[in-house]
């Protein structure tokens, strides 16, 4: 955490994420849908692991019940 290129930005983000995730939970939205992790550009395996782990968490939750219908599917 203390290795942010911009010194403190990630700490600031972490604090906001803490609040937001609990607010989502309060409003009945699974807080696991929001996740913040810090992975540097030199940590490819960690990044892949994080994303795969997150996918494993998200898949069972399914699409958000609040998702709006969009028609952005790639041709």
């Amino acid at each position, binding site marked *: 955490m*203390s*290795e*942010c*290129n*911009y*010194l*403190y*930005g990630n700490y*600031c*983000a972490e604090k*906001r994420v803490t609040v937001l995730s609990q607010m989502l939970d309060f409003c009945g939205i699974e807080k696991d849908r929001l996740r913040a992790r810090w992975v540097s*550009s*030199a940590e*490819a395996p960690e990044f*892949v692991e994080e994303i795969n782990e997150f996918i494993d968490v998200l898949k069972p939750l399914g699409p958000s019940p609040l998702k709006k219908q969009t028609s*952005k599917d*790639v*041709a």
Partner: protein
Amino acid sequence: MNMNDLILYEEPRIGVFVCDCGSNIAGHLDCADVAEYAKTLPNVVYVKENLYTCSEAGIVEIKKAIKGQNLNRVVVASCSPRTHQPLFSSSCAEAGLNPYLFEMVNIRDQCSWVHMGKRDDATQKAKELIRMGVAKSAGLEPQEEIESSLVRKVLVMGGGIAGLSAAQALADMGLDIMLVEKTSNFGGLLQQVHQLDTGGSARALLSKIIDDVQSRSNITCYTKAIVKETGGYIGNFEIKIDTQNGLIKDKVGCIVVATGAVPLIPKGLFGYDGETVISLMELEQKLKKDDLTARRIVFIQCAGARTKEREYCSRICCMIGVKNAMIVKEKYPLIDVRILYRDMQMYGTHKEQMLWDARGKGIQFDVYNPDNPPEVKEGKVSFFQSITGKIIDLDTDLVVLSTPLVPRSDAPAVANMMRVPTDQNGFFLEAHAKLRPLDFAADGIFVCGSGRYPATSTEARTQGLGVASRVAAILFKDKLVKSAIVAKINPESCVGCKACLTMCPYEAITYNRDKRICEINEILCKGCGNCAATCPSHSAQLCGYKPEQLLAQIGAA
């Protein structure tokens, strides 16, 4: 109104260049299909697939299209912006397009590399990333680069081999240097070293360099002096130095941090007593004074390193241990020398050869397991020899502990004063380990020597020279030109709540009492975006990363 402002009112005409990167990208995804898709995106008027967009031919294509197709935005889908953004954006500028109207999409790292072997997925993802890049580019605004003056003077903090080397090289270039050393002598850690790993005496090397540095008219030397304060910004740092003759205030263009590191004193480890169990540095002293009386010496590597509290490898102790073992063996061939190690890390082919030479000289190496470390008792070291599965007792009259270099106790204070980061071990953290190893993220401040990470004298010297060239690249320009990717505060909507002020790690924001708003010093601003994230009314925004630009990008995802 200049031409750049007009672009804001024109319909975006976006050109997309999809790079095959030979087979690097095209080998793993369908670039032709991606290019066809890009043609269907809003505001895209021109699409070109290149074998190598970064080649001369590729660049000519971009320039030709900007003029011929009247493009006012350019998107290149290729490799990493870290390496190639400057090339492409400056090419745009050469063709008369503001370089900030360029956007890059990384379909090599993010598509062909990570989805190798999944051609359809990689192609699909490339399309989506390009769609996002195109959406963002439509909202890009032209920016003017920021210029400021430069002071052609350099502050070097630390008079060890790294700082001395930097000062020497900078002096050769004709710059003025202020060399500040905390202790009364120059030379740093190398003063304690007997012989160099490359052969030759450390003292001889040092005195040659120190004499040279002290004889230069453009190097002002301060010993027993401490840098008290640093303010200002690249090209115009304001510094205060506490010297023996009182406080000195001055202005410098760049700052070099060469404050070094210190060897760990292995108190409480392996029965360390400074007499029969000593540290590597104490052995160097003994060799220097030539009062080695021991008959059987055991080196224990990684003493106090790679442990729970100090996880890192100090890099140079294996080499120093072997170096000293060889010096002992050469001078006193009858001394029995054993080295107990966990892994030998002899960095570089030369040093690897040194290990073989050491074995050839009859120095014995034995591996030990950190879970079952050697025990030092009176006149004896016992350890578990894994090949034989036996506990071996070695009679010994001198144990040498190879201890790591650790950050100086005042490193956090220096980091704090300069507003530069340290890593999890407390060493100074460079901007990028591979791409910018001697720079700090903060412009105009550089790092060399063991303050950054344990370094041999050769490495510290090389880094010092490297830093000198980094500094020269800045200070020999006529003026400072800085990226326009900085934050701006809209004076119309700012309510002066000062929330951004406390959030700026670079102290680039000040409060204007008369106008009751916050203002940004563009030279100090590093474009981190903390203020933009904090501002409740979107008054602080980061150029090139404005909410509408990012939201357009996200919206296209």
